């Protein structure tokens, strides 16, 4: 009887150790998954992470899959983010300028109040599609580290160019922005 109890105790201890080891392996293998931005920075070919989110500019939802065949400028923003206000007119102008060539500016409003986001869109006269991600479910997959951030997606759904951290700015990163737009559209740059 004593031997049986001892073996049960040993088995429980072994199961505990195996479970902890399994958790460690899982964390190392999958827990530190980089976002798309990190893969892009390493020069890897990256498909734009999928999402399907409610729209703020109209009823319904919009997914990345629906935008396949279009060049997309994906801009992560929030109404409480001060630099987002600075770049909003630039993004609207870009949308108006290249829309006929098949470019879509897509705003992803993150960690925000819907009413604040709609108020922001009205204030800056945004007419491009904006989706709502209050929970921030896209942040990890895309590798977004702050707001605003901007990505460029070509017509095949691959990320191109460089991720822009911070506001799109005429002096600081306008060249990077225009190169990203051109790559997304498929123009040689």
């Amino acid at each position, binding site marked *: 009887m*004593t031997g049986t109890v001892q073996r049960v105790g040993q088995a429980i201890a072994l199961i505990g150790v195996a479970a902890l080891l399994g958790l460690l392996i899982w964390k190392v293998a999958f827990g530190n998954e980089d976002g798309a931005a990190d893969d892009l920075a390493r020069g890897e070919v990256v498909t734009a992470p999928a999402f399907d989110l409610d729209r703020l500019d109209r009823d319904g939802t919009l997914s990345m899959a629906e935008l396949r065949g279009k060049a997309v400028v994906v801009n992560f923003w929030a109404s*409480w983010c001060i630099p987002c206000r600075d770049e909003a007119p630039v993004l609207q102008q870009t949308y108006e300028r290249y829309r006929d060539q098949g470019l879509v500016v897509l705003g992803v409003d993150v960690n*925000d109040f819907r009413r604040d986001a709609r108020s922001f869109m009205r204030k800056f006269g945004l007419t491009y599609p904006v989706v709502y991600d209050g929970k921030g479910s896209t942040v990890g997959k895309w590798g977004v580290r702050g707001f605003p951030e901007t990505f460029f997606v070509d017509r095949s759904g691959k990320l191109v160019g460089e991720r822009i951290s911070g506001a799109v700015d005429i002096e600081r990163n306008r060249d990077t922005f225009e190169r990203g737009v051109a790559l997304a559209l498929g123009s040689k740059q």
Partner: protein
Amino acid sequence: MLASAATAAAAPNPADLEAELVCPTCDTTLDQSNAPVAQRMKQIIRQHLAAGWTEAEIKADLVDQFGSGVLAEPPKSGFDLLAWLLPLGLLVAGAFGVGIVAWGWSRRRDAPDGDEEPPDRLDPELERRVDAELERYDA
């Protein structure tokens, strides 16, 4: 008069609410955060309180905007209930395991070891050596 006093006493306190809600960009409670979104959330909470919203209504609104991760304590329902039950379950399982092992050890210590009889007296040679040592000590 009494009713209004009771209502005032039951009215949620903004500071309590801020300690029970999490800033979505910094993962600390609102009372610990000065992040822009946290400041906006505090402002909205005060607006809702001024409009007579209950604590439950305010939390429901914020969960609708930011998801259940905005609550510092997970809800005690649905899948989130696991967050409460799992630690308790592990504690009970751990106590049970420790109990079994302790019981096994105490049984092993009490029980005579197999067929061997415990010696009721010392080996004669050893007894002789012990006596000799004791005599030498006394001398």
